[in-house]
């Protein structure tokens, strides 16, 4: 009790200095947490992907399409129990900055294959019954204030013109990591209109998604699919859904590495600031440490006081920082919209924040504690007066 009181009073002896140090740690811990969360969000799609699904695209590039007729052949590949398809739409809702992913899907097969998108039976039926119907994720609907029954106009960029959809349902995620910021509508509607406007662009699909009978057969089935379309006009590249998602992540790998590096550099910087604070603090108190030692307190006790104070300040900053990471990350998510769909602070990130706080507290105290513990009493006493 006495030691705790002593440490607390020491920690707040210079209120401005301690407050500024705590604020610095808070900023660093928040920055660390938000940056780590951004990196996590980048991988969220890949992490949430199923190992029981394959994605087939044009082997040349994702920007090249595949004939819709491939669907029939895909269903015949051994190990495939279902086939769905999707096209990236790339429309603009009101203004360019309102970005969110939009896909034209083979509605029934696609939703069967993605049970993580949870839709009420009534909304499911309504969507299926309306060729111009659409469904949106809960997060997306809440962001734009959409309600079931609303008409959602999208200005096409890949498919010119204004496309108006009837919102027939709002889906939720089966798990916390499920993306609920995507907009889906019927491929048939898109295909029908495209065929009217640009007959040569009709019956073309962006990607096929195959449901596997056994996830362990993923490699064999992928090879079988690609072999099926070997030497055709549109050769395919089939990979697991996770690999497909990671392919997107890989495009921004350098940025992610830089973000991760910055998140650690922030901690190193605050460590230096904290070490400077503790060094100043200990230097000012050499006389007091010498007095304590003269009274019979050991070098270990003096070192303990410095470590406890340093850890106290660091963990106070870390605690406040962790608490503030949630609203800051939410604010960031709101600002960037659907670009980063899964901006949720993970348990690992919080543990790393706690670890960073501990590390800052311990490392900042090592040199001052070592010096204070070793100071000769007579030398320390000379610093008073």
């Amino acid at each position, binding site marked *: 009790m006495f030691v705790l009181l002593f440490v607390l009073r020491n920690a707040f002896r210079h209120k401005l200095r301690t407050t500024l140090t705590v604020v610095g740690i808070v900023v660093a811990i928040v920055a660390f947490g938000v940056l780590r969360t951004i990196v996590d969000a980048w991988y969220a799609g890949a992490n949430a992907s199923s190992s029981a699904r394959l994605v087939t695209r044009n082997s040349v590039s994702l920007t090249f399409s595949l004939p819709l007729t491939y669907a029939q052949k895909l269903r015949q590949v051994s190990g495939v129990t279902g086939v769905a398809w999707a096209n990236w739409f790339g429309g603009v809702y009101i203004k360019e900055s309102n970005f969110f992913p939009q896909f034209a899907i083979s509605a029934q097969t696609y939703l069967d294959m993605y049970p993580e998108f949870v839709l009420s039976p009534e909304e499911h039926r309504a969507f299926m019954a309306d060729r111009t119907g659409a469904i949106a994720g809960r997060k997306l609907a809440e962001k734009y204030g959409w309600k079931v029954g609303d008409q959602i106009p999208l200005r096409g960029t890949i498919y010119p013109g204004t496309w108006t959809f009837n919102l027939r349902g709002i889906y939720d995620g089966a798990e916390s990591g499920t993306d609920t910021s995507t907009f889906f509508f019927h491929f048939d509607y898109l295909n029908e209109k495209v065929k009217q406007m640009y007959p040569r662009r009709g019956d073309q699909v962006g990607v096929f998604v195959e449901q596997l009978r056994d996830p362990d057969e993923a490699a064999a089935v992928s090879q079988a699919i690609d072999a099926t379309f070997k030497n055709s006009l549109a050769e395919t590249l089939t990979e697991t859904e996770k690999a497909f998602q990671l392919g997107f992540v890989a495009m921004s790998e350098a940025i992610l590495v830089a973000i991760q590096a910055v998140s650690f550099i922030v901690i190193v910087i605050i460590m230096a600031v904290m070490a400077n604070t503790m060094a100043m603090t200990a230097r000012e108190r050499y006389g007091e440490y010498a007095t304590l030692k003269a*009274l019979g307190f050991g*070098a270990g006790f003096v070192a303990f006081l410095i470590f406890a104070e340093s850890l106290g300040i660091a963990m106070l900053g870390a605690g406040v920082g962790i608490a503030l990471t949630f609203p800051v990350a939410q604010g960031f998510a709101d600002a960037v919209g659907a670009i980063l769909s899964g901006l949720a602070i993970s348990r690992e990130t919080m543990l790393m924040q706690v670890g960073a706080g501990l590390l800052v507290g311990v490392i900042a105290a090592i040199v001052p504690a070592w010096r204070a513990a070793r100071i000769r009493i*007579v030398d320390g006493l000379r610093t*008073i*007066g």
Partner: protein
Amino acid sequence: MAVAVEDTGREPLVAIRGLAKYYIRGDQVIPVLEHINLDVYEADYVALMGPSGSGKSTLLNLIAGIDKPSAGEIRVAGVDIAQLSEADLAAWRAANVGFIFQFYNLIPVLTAFQNIELPLQLTALTRAERRERVEVALQLVALTDRATHRPNELSGGQQQRVAIARALITDPAIIVADEPTGDLDRTTAEEILSLLERLNGELGKTIIMVTHDPKAAEKAHRLIHLEKGVLVD
């Protein structure tokens, strides 16, 4: 040479023989104390005097066990403290020495009560026992009404009285005082010296005091002069 050893037939509380202290700076050996032989008896009140740099504070530090001699022996109540390890010496100081410093050396974040209680944190006393002892010490130095005040809320004389109470609290064998009135005005200095006299006279405390002040030295039973690191008559 051995000017402060008398054959009294009594066992000295502090017995110093052949004590030397020197510092080494590069190739130079700088002597601070040489050939010191000194006995201090229980309930003695000794004043160490001498010009600046004569080594009196160094001698006091050696007796108090906060510095180590280069040669010689310092026995306090039969224990050769020069031979103790750092940890043993710290424990020995906690049990046997009370310190009074020129600038009081109180811990600024602790109240007068807590400063006095500080040495008792190293003992096995219960909280209630510690409180009882501190209250007695506060009464002795007439600061009961200032128990909850921090050092910066006390005058110099009051701070020194808190330091005296802290020095007494563990009932040590000896009290060492380094210029205890050096930072005080004459009136306050008199109060502090009277208090030290009472500790010596009424409680039988052994006091070894370094001072420049002849009036402070007058209060002591014995006056020991140091000059250029040696004891002089």
